[in-house]
């Protein structure tokens, strides 16, 4: 028999694997069958008494794997930061060999997401005031090939925004991590594709703050758009500015959005960085903005620190290294993954998937203790992926 403490207090206690793979959530339904459930302050559903017997465990090939949020015997390499299971990069720990491996397809199908109490307040185009931070993230929505507008993932991004709208409580606002088109930069298909995106985006009634991706320039990760930059003003860049930034009254692809508590008990800034429209002016802006102290600082950029061929990645990372921040939210890679302690990729918004995960959107939810809980809501099931869940303190360090 192996007892299961289902993600108590977000996580990492006991072995949730048997339940996650073969228990009440295995068919993609919320874990309401079998043992009673209750709620904890964090808002996560908790199974208070489930157990998995040896026979069902043996029949369940997922049972030997411990997801990142579960303590296990895999050994974290010296000097590296690992998840609770001793592995990195979202890998699972094979508990029969204590080796880290990619999570097998079909394991950890998800659990119900409870975002807690609905935040009060509003966020407009220039920021706002909320009782607590609670926002969604979606990124990378484009067809596989250039000008392949007939292959635009309209149905996927439509469902994502509809799911976002239907989530209870509804996210107070959203950020997007870039790449809304894949079009010849001198052609017209980029504008057509962004129209498709914005049509889908209309399914969500909250404010969306978009970051610029490499496909909003020429398409190449190395490209750099904007007046005076190597690639100048492309049609894709113009379509992004006109159709996505103008409605939120932004004229630059880099900007700041502030969301604070009504009583001033906490403050936050969201800094949207454009690594494919990098200039020294943007560097100065970022340095100045980061120097202003806030309780939380989120950076939203398209390319992760590892995609360092984008012109603005390395200079932005250098500036970030001089200031405190909570989390860098990126896309570019069509998956979701916590790549560093303070960097998370959310790029599974409809573009051709590169990792072994599904489409979906991320959720950032401020908890009563001030930590930020991060989750991914699966496109197919509408459930949160328990292998991905993590929490951070305002300074980005792991929350208990």
């Amino acid at each position, binding site marked *: 028999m192996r007892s299961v403490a289902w993600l108590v207090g977000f996580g990492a206690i006991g072995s949730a694997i048997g339940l996650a793979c073969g228990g009440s959530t295995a068919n993609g339904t919320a874990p309401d069958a079998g043992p009673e459930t209750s709620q904890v302050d964090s808002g996560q559903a908790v199974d208070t008494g489930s157990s998995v017997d040896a026979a069902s465990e043996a029949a369940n090939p997922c049972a030997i794997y411990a997801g990142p949020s579960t303590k296990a015997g895999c050994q974290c390499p010296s000097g590296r930061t690992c998840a609770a299971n001793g592995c990195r990069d979202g890998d699972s720990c094979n508990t029969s060999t204590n080796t880290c491996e990619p999570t097998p397809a079909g394991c950890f199908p998800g659990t119900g997401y409870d975002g807690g109490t609905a935040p009060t307040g509003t966020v407009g185009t220039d920021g706002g005031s909320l009782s607590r931070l609670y926002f969604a993230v979606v990124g990378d929505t484009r067809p596989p090939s250039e000008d392949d507008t007939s292959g635009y993932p309209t149905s996927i991004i439509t469902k994502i925004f509809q799911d976002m709208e239907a989530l209870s409580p509804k996210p107070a606002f959203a950020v997007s991590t870039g790449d809304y088109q894949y079009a010849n930069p001198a052609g017209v*298909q980029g504008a057509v594709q962004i129209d498709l995106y914005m049509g889908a985006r209309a399914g969500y009634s909250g404010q969306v703050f978009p970051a610029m991706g490499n496909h909003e320039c*020429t398409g190449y990760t190395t490209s750099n758009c904007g007046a005076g930059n190597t690639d100048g003003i492309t049609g894709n860049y113009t379509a992004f500015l006109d159709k996505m930034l103008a409605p939120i009254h932004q004229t630059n692809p880099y900007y700041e959005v502030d969301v604070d508590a009504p009583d001033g008990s906490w403050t936050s800034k969201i800094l949207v960085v454009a690594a494919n429209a990098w200039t020294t002016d943007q560097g100065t802006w970022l340095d100045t903005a980061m120097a202003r102290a806030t309780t939380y600082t989120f950076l939203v950029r398209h390319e992760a620190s590892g995609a360092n061929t984008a012109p603005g990645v390395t200079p932005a990372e250098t500036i970030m290294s001089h200031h405190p921040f909570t989390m860098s939210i990126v896309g570019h890679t069509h998956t979701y993954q916590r790549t560093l302690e303070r960097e998370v990729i959310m790029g599974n918004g409809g573009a051709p998937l590169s990792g072994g995960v599904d489409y979906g959107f991320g959720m950032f939810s401020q908890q009563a203790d001030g930590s930020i809980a991060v989750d991914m809501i699966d496109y197919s099931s509408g459930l949160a992926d328990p292998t991905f869940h993590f929490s951070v303190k305002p300074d980005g360090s792991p929350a208990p």
Partner: protein
Amino acid sequence: MGAPPRNRSALLLATTLVVAVGAGLTVRHLFAAHSLGASVTPRASTQAAAGPETVLRVPHMPGGITLDGDTDDPGWISAPGPARTGDFLMPDGTPARPFSEVRLVWGDGYLYLALYAADEDIETRTTERDGPIWLDDEFRVVFSREGVEYAIEVSPKAVITDSMRVGDGKWDYTWNSGAHASVEIDGSVNDPKNIDEEWAIEMAVPFESLGMKGEPGESVGMSVTRCDTPKRSARVCTGWGEGESRGRLVLK
């Protein structure tokens, strides 16, 4: 028009070199795949028992195509649009990750294929035609017709290795398909330290080399395998038109 030429990684390769490696290469090929832990789905055989087929009706291209790696030509984007394989599948039938897809049109005596590969780490070492592309990230397209299989493998550098065999005989690498391929890459090849995005092949295969005339109503069996070695994972091969649900193209 696309991005400035300095950014382009487009290569246009003529099919000129032929290396007569012959049957020995087949053995090396299979051994290499095995030693790398490849998850190779069974290759379609012309002698295999007939099963349900997945038929793609390939439209005549509605406009011109310039073989430059970009698929922004009228031949690709004008109505009615190309035939699509959709998501490749893993050997267990689940959607392939990373994503792969092929689009097809035909005209002017050629079958045109746009092969797309999402890829976080593009790896390819083979530089010579008919070299061991099967050790690299690759697409392998196999056409089957009248008891003959024609295999064309292409790498992220648009290097081609082609071969043919009769029935279940040995693969003959002296065969030259006459295929032309160009590539567009977003990423840095053979540099696992950073994150790549994708590579795409635009390829033209002359019908003549497949024993076809290139006329409406003609058909040919086709399967496609894409192999990739992700970071931190074993090499994985996914495909379309293989196994029990074999693929077939019909020219519209």
